[in-house]
């Protein structure tokens, strides 16, 4: 569609890889994450997409919200398709970057072996996992990424369990074990940081991996307006640390400014509602367990830092008149 020159939508000072009109829910974290990733990656890319919300809400036939080449085949093979596309481009002598995308179900569980193979074969592909911590598209079933104690339709709290019994899979460490040049975690609450990590991954010739924490208002049980607030608290409490790994080694972490108790994060979400039932002694136990997991992350990644000034502005996307404080 050619848009008139006086249409402000046609004159936005950023690349629009994912356009409006998609069918994501109100306040969808994944839609925001995908928009930020594609706008930082630019137009010279080919996307592959695993089955999932992102695939469904962007491409209801016969429309597409994507403004770059985009392929979808199956749930489990986003990385395999990306590997093939990359090999074909290489054979043709073309240098477009391939970005493989999937949700946590398609990445942590179903598409994991394809992903591992892609990394092992050192394809020049950026794999982006939009992590909303359950199978949202099919009706909020637990995945390997669902955090401990969260309620899903297949991990309901009750007499036997307080939500999911198991832990969130430490995917980043598994990825790190492939000894790839660059892997990082990011969050929609820190768009500056997310964009920087995409650009960093784009300039590396080799496999790179990005895990983007993307709240799901429907599946997590919070208001659509609170998506960023929830994502921000996940980082600030230490439950979702933002780290960068190069060749498996921790290269940098986003420092935390002050300790925020995990309950601040949990209480905003319906999926942790059972942890606030005073009459149930297990609720307190599980809250303490989650706090201990956060404390473990802080210690493991040194989130409070021991450098010159861990309380500096790196810890947040602060603003000043005319834009973000750090561009």
């Amino acid at each position, binding site marked *: *569609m050619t848009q008139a020159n006086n249409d*402000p*939508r046609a*004159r*936005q*000072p950023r690349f*629009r890889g*994912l*356009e*409006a*009109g*998609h*069918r*994501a829910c*109100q*306040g*969808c*974290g994944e*839609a*925001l994450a995908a*928009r*930020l990733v594609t706008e930082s990656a630019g137009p010279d890319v080919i996307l592959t997409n695993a089955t999932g919300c992102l695939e469904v809400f*962007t*491409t*209801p*036939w*016969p*429309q*597409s*919200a994507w*403004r770059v080449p985009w392929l979808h085949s199956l749930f489990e093979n986003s990385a395999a398709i990306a590997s093939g596309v990359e090999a074909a481009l290489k054979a043709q002598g073309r240098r477009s970057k391939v970005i493989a995308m999937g949700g946590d179900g398609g990445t942590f569980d179903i598409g994991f072996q394809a992903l591992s193979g892609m990394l092992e074969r050192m394809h020049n592909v950026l794999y982006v996992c939009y992590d909303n911590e359950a199978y949202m598209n099919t009706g909020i079933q637990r995945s390997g990424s669902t955090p401990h104690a969260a309620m899903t339709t297949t991990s309901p709290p009750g007499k036997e369990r307080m939500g999911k019994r198991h832990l969130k899979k430490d995917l980043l460490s598994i990825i790190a074990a492939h000894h790839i040049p660059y892997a990082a975690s990011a969050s*929609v609450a820190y*768009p500056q940081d997310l964009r920087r990590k995409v650009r960093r991954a784009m300039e590396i010739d080799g496999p790179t991996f990005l895990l983007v924490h993307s709240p799901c*208002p429907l599946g997590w049980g919070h*208001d*659509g*307006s*609170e*998506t*960023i*607030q929830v994502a*921000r608290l996940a980082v600030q409490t230490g439950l979702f640390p933002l780290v960068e790994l190069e060749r498996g080694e921790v290269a940098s972490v986003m420092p935390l400014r002050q300790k925020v108790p995990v309950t601040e994060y949990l209480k905003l979400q319906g999926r942790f509602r059972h942890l606030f039932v005073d009459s149930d002694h297990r609720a307190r136990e599980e809250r303490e367990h989650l706090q201990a997991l956060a404390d473990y992350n802080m210690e493991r990644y040194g989130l409070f830092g021991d450098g010159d000034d861990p309380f500096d*502005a790196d810890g*947040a*996307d*602060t*603003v*000043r*008149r*005319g*834009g*973000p*404080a750090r561009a």
Partner: protein
Amino acid sequence: MPITMNRGAFAHAGSSLAFKTGTWRSAKPVHVHATAPCHGACPAGEDQQAWLALLQEGKPQKAWEQLVTTNPLPAITGRVCPHPCESACNRGHLDQPIAIHGIERWLGDEAIRNNWSYPRRGGEIRAERVAIVGAGPAGLSAAYHLTQRKYNVVLFDSLPEPGGLLRSAIPPTRLPRAVIDAEIGRLLRTGIEFRPRTALGRDVTLDELRSEFDAVFLGVGAGKSRHWDVDGAVPADLHEGLALLREWLAVGALPKPNAVVIHGGGNTAVDLARVMRRAGIRDVHVVTASGLPGPDTDADDVLNVVPRELEQAIEEGVQFHPHRTINRLIMRGSKVVGVEMVRLKKLPDGSGRKSRVSFEGTETVLHVDMVVPAIGEVVDATGLEYILRQRDFLSVDMFGRIGGQPGLFAGGDARDRLKAYPNGTVSAAIGDGRRAAEGIDALLSRRDPVEENRPPLPYASLNLSYYESSPRIDLPTLPLEQRNDSAEIEGGPNSAQAMAEAQRCFSCGNCLACDNCWTLCPDNAVLKTSEMAKDGSHYLFDYEYCKGCGLCAKECPCGFISMQAEE
């Protein structure tokens, strides 16, 4: 692009833009330019947020021009105003309020140094003439705002120099005379005819003014000390506080008792106490029914002086006796040798109104050889008898209109207290002058007067996650041993400090252009434009696609976006 089917029966994808997700919405984001708390609290009506924003953009002259659209005397108010704007500042919730008075003072001083002139307002030249009685802050402000609206203004004052109490009652240690001369000089040069040494009731009558001019504004101040005695007893050599201060400012003369008690809790009492203390009087006591600022004192029960002035007075050795009154004068013949004080407090009585209750058994004695009342002033009725009719102050509405007297306006210390517009400060007088100018303009243009009325900004609509903690600037104070009767005690910030301090402003209720809404909309429904939209921002909502999730409103740091229910 229309969807085209080819013969292989697959479709070239059409754009999702054809699908208008805006129909999902139950509430829509709108830009609301709410009133920042500093602006809401300012007695002069300044929009501090607006001029701090211009400073953040690195435009001091533009900032000053914005400031003087309401207050033509910023170098003066930056020094003497008790800055309720800072008490209201939302930054106080995060660390400390912005040092607004310091920045205002710096802007005022920059304007004097660089000889900036007031921006010229457009509009037709008016034939009507307005008389203004009293060249104090209220009169000067009214004269300025009427001249800006192109009226012919004649300003009368009984004294040889303009300035009113700025000159006659505020010591140069707080307000240097050069600053008064510079700001008032600039104001009068805008085309105001100044007639000094013309007193109402002596050289000209109110009726003469009313017949000669189309409107008259009375900014006569409160120049007569309230009657004071203790159970009918008055020392033979009684001096009123304001009279002493005026005499000292005019000729430098001051009585020299060994110990003095000043009765009162306003600026006059504290200024006089400091002057007497610096003159070498050993014991200077201030007895006041109000309290000192502290956790136990209600905000409306605190001494009505600039807080830092109070601190400096205590530093200089003035002894305060809060929540007390003078019960009895201890006289030897007609001479005072001491006073008996008693503790008291303002407490609600049976009807809920607060009245002063003194507590028996708490009497104490101060040995002093002089008592100075400084319990406040009322309007000097000379020339105003038929308007004032035995009352202490003039009754006016918010536009300064005196009821039943068309064409007659008043403001400043001469008027009654209005609940929404407390007076008694220079800034309040400046605000009065501005609103009265609107009242006069409305009268002479045969329309209803209007005052800007934007909704206040609820604190909860700010998002503090986006602001960094940063400390307030420290302003220099003259060390105790260097203080004298002429050197200014408070210093101002330097340029770097003032510009840095302005950066601390949250921009409450007004767009910061931070890009948050544009960056965080999952639906690409916020568009950025290079033009400034009418609502003062660079962003547009594309309601064809906005699903109404409210994320932009939540993440707007300054509360500029609100969600409004769809009909």
